[in-house]
């Protein structure tokens, strides 16, 4: 019997038992569609996280953070100076594997006000001009402050779009984009000029959604305006990923301005004091109490460095550590936070999701395979007589084996194809129901994998019943009632 005939016979048999075959296929359909949908979800997650990773500055960026002094150095705690500009200059001079050093000085409890509107930006950072480059900011309007602004500690600031939205109104509310370059705002009652604004950062997904929404007329609002809880930042139609929100909610001022205007107001002459008071920025505290020997807290909140070569990450960090141990009198009160940790976390999370999804899908495919085997066994028991007749008129072991195997594989193939179709529908449904920032993406590989897997399951499930059928003794099979 030629294979084409065998396939035709297989199809006929499946068609003769439509409902039963459909039920059998259901296992494979579910298995395949769950595998494809799962991998589409994971792929979507992966894409979203990769975008976010690039947005926060890529892998070359390393943050030097304060760390609790190790137990064995606790006795020297009062000698720890913290991270200062001294470290910055030392690193620039003595660590050739580090191409860029960006000092950051943060202050909390900041309120920016303008004409009755106010905002407390999440990131209020005094820094150097090269922060733009390191943190992958893009200037949309105006300019970044420069070294002269920093040298003279000018009251200038560069803001993100979320700050603009809060103080001037978002494009969605106003109907046109406001570019507030040259405007003045009050930051903790000090007058600052806005000299630049970053572009609006968002995930690819949100950008598309926003451009689509632009064409539609605005929906009429029902009832009074209300806040929809945390995360629904005004202006953006969706919470476009935490990383992007964080980036939009940033204000940069020159480092020296920060030091003099805000640190000086803390009333702490913190040089070498070792106390953690850098964040006590209450505006009402005594500037009047400053004396001649008063020096504002010179400690930096963080230090961001850029590694020359990602492959030499370990060497560069060792270099930085050596330099900084020197400036810190051997006290290890700092640590390095690489994006690598973060990206490893992402990779880990993704591989976990992939693994669990894969296992679930594999189990459902396995169950589908068992279903096929079960049905094939029932079917050959039902058809013992038929097999006997076929053998009596000249079917060989191989003929019967092929026939049963083909039936099982055809069921699996049809089930697999139906599963691919269902998975596409399923993913569409998921996208329609929950428009998250991580759109599921169906990949060709996952479809091929799922389909191949279903065919393999069909073959495996068919082997035993086919063997059993082919081995039937024709005399006994013919006698079977």
């Amino acid at each position, binding site marked *: 019997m030629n294979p084409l005939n065998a396939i035709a016979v297989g199809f006929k048999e499946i068609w003769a038992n439509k409902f039963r075959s459909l039920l059998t296929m259901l296992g494979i359909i579910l298995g395949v569609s769950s595998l494809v949908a799962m991998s589409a979800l994971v792929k979507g997650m992966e894409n979203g996280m990769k975008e976010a990773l690039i947005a926060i500055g890529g892998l070359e960026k390393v943050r030097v953070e304060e760390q609790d002094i190790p137990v064995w150095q606790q006795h020297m705690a009062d000698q720890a100076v913290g991270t200062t500009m001294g470290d910055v200059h030392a690193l620039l001079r003595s660590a050739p594997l580090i191409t860029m050093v960006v000092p950051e000085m943060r202050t909390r409890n900041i309120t920016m006000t303008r004409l009755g509107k106010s905002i407390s930006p999440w990131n209020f950072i005094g820094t150097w001009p090269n922060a733009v480059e390191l943190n992958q900011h893009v200037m949309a309007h105006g300019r970044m402050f420069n070294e002269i602004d920093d040298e003279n500690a000018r009251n200038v600031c560069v803001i993100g779009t979320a700050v603009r939205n809060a103080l001037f109104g978002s494009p969605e509310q106003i109907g046109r984009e406001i570019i507030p370059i040259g405007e003045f705002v009050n930051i903790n009652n000090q007058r600052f000029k806005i000299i630049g604004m970053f572009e609006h950062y968002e995930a690819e997904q949100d950008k598309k959604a926003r451009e689509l929404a632009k064409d539609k007329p605005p929906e009429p609002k029902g009832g009074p305006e209300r806040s929809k809880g945390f995360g629904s930042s005004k202006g953006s139609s969706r919470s476009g990923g935490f990383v992007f929100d964080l980036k939009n909610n940033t204000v940069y001022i020159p480092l020296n301005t920060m030091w003099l205007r805000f640190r000086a107001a803390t009333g702490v002459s913190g040089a070498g004091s070792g106390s953690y008071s850098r964040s006590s920025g209450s505006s009402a505290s005594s500037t009047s109490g400053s004396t001649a020997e008063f020096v504002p807290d010179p400690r930096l909140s963080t230090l961001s460095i850029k590694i020359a070569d990602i492959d030499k990450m370990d060497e560069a960090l060792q270099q930085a550590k050596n330099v900084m141990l020197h400036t810190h009198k051997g006290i290890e009160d700092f640590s390095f936070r690489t994006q690598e940790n973060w990206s490893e976390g992402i990779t880990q999370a993704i591989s976990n999701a992939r693994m669990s999804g894969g296992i679930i899908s594999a189990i459902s495919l396995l169950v589908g395979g068992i279903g096929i085997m079960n049905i094939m066994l029932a079917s050959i028991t039902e058809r013992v007589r038929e097999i006997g007749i076929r053998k009596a*008129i000249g079917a060989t072991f191989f*003929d019967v084996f092929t026939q049963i195997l083909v039936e099982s594989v055809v069921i699996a193939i049809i089930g697999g194809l139906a599963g691919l179709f269902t998975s596409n529908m399923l993913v569409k449904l998921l996208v329609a129901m929950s428009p998250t920032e991580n759109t599921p993406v169906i990949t060709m590989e996952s479809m091929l994998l799922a389909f191949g897997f279903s065919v393999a399951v069909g073959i495996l499930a068919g082997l035993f019943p086919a063997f059993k059928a082919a081995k039937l003794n024709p005399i006994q099979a013919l006698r079977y009632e």
Partner: protein
Amino acid sequence: MALIELRGVSKIYHLGGEEIRALDNVDLDINPGEFISIIGPSGSGKSTLMHILGCLDSPSKGSIKLDGMEIGSASARELARIRNQKIGFVFQFFNLLPKLNVLQNVELPMVYAGCSSRERRERAMDALRLVEMDNRAKHRPMQLSGGQQQRAAIARALVNSPKIVFADEPTGNLDSHTGETILKLFHDLSLKGSTIALVTHDPEIAAVTPRKIEIRDGKISKNVDAKLSGQHDGPKFAVGSQQN
């Protein structure tokens, strides 16, 4: 030369340590064109003999030559090929596949022989014409009467032009009138040159054939050829004798 030659064929089953000789040292020749009946009560070993003659089973001992070929030691695959090419079976319960129509049932042996679909169709229609079933080609077995089903089964048995056709109680499931028509069909086929072996327990049916082989306890107890002894004057059919 005999079409089938059995020499010292035995079939022995072992059931719980007990030895059962279903066939005991049987010698038998069947010549081409013969119309014979194998007769015996149930349990006599006639079915076992038919299975061995029909290559469905292998003997425990002895040699069988079919068409000059030794098949006592043939593999399962070779036996399947011999069944397909040289032997036709007609069963008591017709054994047509219910999901296929008559034409497809008749084509089935040729499917395993590897014939082209065009050849299959032509030869199947020829075979159906021979048993006067060509007008029922598209019917399902369930839509036919018992006699019609048996005719279709005979067409299937003949379609590969076998050397010999075995019919196992072919009238056992039919009323006596239809049974006689079927027997007459076999008779006509034998007149056209087919070698046919009827297996039955019924002496009346066996009376149709010129040669009778009686089996008892696994041995051939009688081997009567009416033609040789001149006693046989042809079968008496109640239904009108068919021309040609």
